[in-house]
């Protein structure tokens, strides 16, 4: 089975969020970057498990600059066979998806996996976009996947519950919690990752219909109003009269 896993780089959740260049760009100074957890823990690991069970190959792909190479190497250390980096600085999900679809168009991947969303921009868009551009079915928010030959039985999260669907390869899915268990790269994996191929390819020409033109920080929260633990009637009054939420 030929598997393609889309991986992205995000600031660690604990990173300080600040902007530069007239509040039009994220300030990367001193920020620790990680592989997006949904890509690393669930999409990549489930792809590796599928390969271990049925044979084949796992390719990871990223659209980004050479600043992403450390995160890509980590994906190789966890176990991917090879990596592709499309050398561009993406400004939108549309751009990312079009680039990945252009690369994958003639490679006959059986399954394309993405994370359910990136934890910085929370778009949840790239997976569906790739699927549309490649004319594939798309199952979002997959929490469980079993393959039987080329037929997959997938459980996915829906509002207030879950749905089980059946689909044949080729298809795209986005990975949610539950799809696999996180793997920590071991020493051997890290050593081997240095020799695995990381192919840098040029982007295709795309006119990008959207971009971020500015960032603002939310209004600072007023400091907490403490209520006497003996006086819950007062809390109820505040929630009703002041906050107007009940």
């Amino acid at each position, binding site marked *: 089975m030929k598997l393609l896993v889309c991986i992205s780089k995000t600031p660690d959740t604990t990173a300080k969020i600040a902007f530069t260049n007239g509040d039009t760009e994220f300030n990367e100074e001193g920020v620790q970057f990680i592989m997006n957890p949904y890509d690393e823990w669930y999409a990549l690991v489930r792809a590796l498990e599928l390969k271990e069970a049925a044979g084949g190959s796992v390719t990871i792909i990223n659209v980004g600059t050479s600043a992403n190479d450390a995160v890509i190497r980590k994906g190789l250390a966890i176990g991917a066979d090879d990596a592709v980096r499309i050398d561009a600085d993406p400004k939108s999900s549309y751009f990312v998806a079009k680039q990945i679809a252009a690369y994958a168009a003639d490679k006959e991947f059986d399954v394309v996996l993405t994370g359910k969303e990136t934890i910085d921009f929370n778009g949840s868009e790239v997976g569906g976009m790739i699927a549309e551009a490649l004319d594939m079915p*798309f199952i979002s928010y997959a929490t469980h996947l079993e393959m039987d030959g080329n037929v997959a039985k997938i459980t996915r999260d829906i509002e207030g519950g879950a749905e089980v669907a059946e689909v044949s390869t080729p298809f795209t899915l986005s990975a949610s919690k539950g799809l696999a268990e996180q793997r920590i790269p071991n020493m051997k994996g890290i050593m081997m990752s240095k020799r695995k191929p990381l192919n840098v390819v040029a982007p295709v020409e795309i006119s990008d219909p959207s971009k971020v033109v500015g960032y603002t920080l939310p209004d600072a929260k007023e400091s907490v*109003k403490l*209520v006497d633990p003996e006086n819950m009637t007062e809390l109820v009054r505040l929630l009703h009269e002041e906050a107007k939420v009940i």
Partner: protein
Amino acid sequence: MVLVFAEQQKGKFKKATLEAITYGAKTAQLLNTTCAALVIGNAEGVDNLGVYGATKIYQINAEGLNDFDSQSYAAAIANAAKELGAKVIIMGHSSTGKSLLGRVAIRLEAGSVAGVNQLPSVEGGFKVNKNVFSGKAIATYELSSEVKVLSLMGNSLAPEEMGAAVAPEELSVDVPASRVKVLEAKTVDGEVPLPEAELVVSAGRGMKEPGNWGIIEDLAKSLGATTACSRPVADAGWRPHHEHVGQTGVAIRPNLYIAAGISGAIQHLAGVNRSKVIVVINKDPEAPFFKAADYGVVGDLFEVVPKLTAAINAYKAE
């Protein structure tokens, strides 16, 4: 024209759909155009979408749309948008909306923004805001394509009665056959799912053990709230996984979030800090959650929570 995909579940429209219609109608006003609703399949109260601002209602009934499949649904919506000449397409940021948004955008070569929380500004370019970095910042997107696709974050604006009932018209569009077979759908009936809940009562490791959750359930019941929990509690199997909120769980923005015995770790806050009002009950005055809270109660939850339940019941009885 602004076209709103009016999502239904089991033949019913949820509040999120009415929010999307009102958002669409207000966006249409800004753009000096009209707002239409698009319904797939049959549902109760289709005419009523007019009350919330749609001046036209189109209904598609086609084989292949009986079960949800993002590919056939996206094709139906995009083909309808082309046929009707819609320039802005709006849907809810639900699990359905999320799996459709990107597909519709690619089909229409449209710029898209997922999870907007305010009306767009249309002077000197089409710009719209959304929360990014787990609610720690707001990004303004500019969309330059002729057609734009947006998904609306739940609870961003209230549905408004701003029109009158409208009779739906049949619309027929090409829909490709679905390649996904839905085997079963399991949803909890009767309970408001977390992402849609307006009131949420949540608890964490401060509860000590799963057998103690009765007081949280009583509080939730007194308010008509949905229950949630922190991650360690779900990981330990004390509570079902769908209750887990935070960076790796569900992200929510209810009107009221009450957290008892939760320390307020950054990964927890990532999923809840967009709530309108946060109440924190914790015995440790230094718990980080108090910094993100509107109201705080420093005390033992085993005493405070039952007192709060009693106070709410007394208030409701009045």
